[in-house]
């Protein structure tokens, strides 16, 4: 069970609300990734921010540049799976399967300690933004499972 993180400046509206994980605090989150194996060296690539990947800043990333260096995670596995399912369904229905870039797996991360920061806007889709070194985030993966049940991926 994740303990409630504390401290950090709390700003309102569209401004950034970054919190720090304190000593002994932990946060469990879920992230779409592109490999099923924790030992796969490419796993770290699934934790690179849009800035690290050289993508242009878009949306909140433009208004709040720090957002460009964070990654999207979800508080529940179900919400991560829903995000993937709806994007995949839309592209497949459009006949654009070749444009699929989203990960087929969901990693569960247990973030512990001061190396990680996060923003939680309590949004209905249980989305959060997490900041941390990509290799540290990959090392925090507890397990990885397919986003879709085996009988639904055929």
């Amino acid at each position, binding site marked *: 069970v994740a303990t409630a993180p504390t401290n950090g400046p709390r700003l309102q509206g569209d401004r950034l609300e970054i919190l720090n994980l304190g000593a002994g605090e932990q946060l469990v989150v879920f992230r779409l990734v592109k490999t099923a194996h924790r030992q796969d060296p490419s796993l770290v690539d699934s934790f690179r921010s849009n800035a690290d990947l050289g*993508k242009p800043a878009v949306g909140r990333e433009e208004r709040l540049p720090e957002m460009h260096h964070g990654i999207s995670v979800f508080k529940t596995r179900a919400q991560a799976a829903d995000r993937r399912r709806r994007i995949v369904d839309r592209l497949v229905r459009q006949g*654009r399967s070749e444009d699929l870039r*989203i990960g087929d797996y969901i990693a569960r991360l247990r973030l512990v300690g001061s190396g990680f920061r996060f923003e939680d806007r309590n949004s209905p*889709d249980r989305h959060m933004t997490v900041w941390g070194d990509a290799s540290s985030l990959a090392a925090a993966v507890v397990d990885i499972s397919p986003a879709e049940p085996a009988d639904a991926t055929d």
Partner: protein
Amino acid sequence: MYYAISDSEGSTLDTFTDERAAEDALVELSQRHDTSGETFFLLAYEDDGSPIGDARVVGDVLQHQLSGLLRQFEVDYGWVAPLVPSSAGEAPVVPLLTAKATDGTNTTASELTFLGSSTG
């Protein structure tokens, strides 16, 4: 209701509580980053987090907005003619879309856009 704009890897780029604002942002982002090869998606949620419907892309939103525009025009002005391609051999000044107002006057596509914007 809650709306999230996501990129094709599932990362949230922006969020909204107003559908029209979310749709407008999706259109603006998609147009501005047209050459990036990225596809942006609009996802809707109930306030309790339950997903609503399918993910939408910019084409879905534009189609929805045009449909609303035509429906509104039909309410205000009686009826809307089907899409009328310009006749072969005519100069390309013939509007692709013609609507007839209740006073019998014809309205061009550009006027239709103006009227639709003014009716909100």
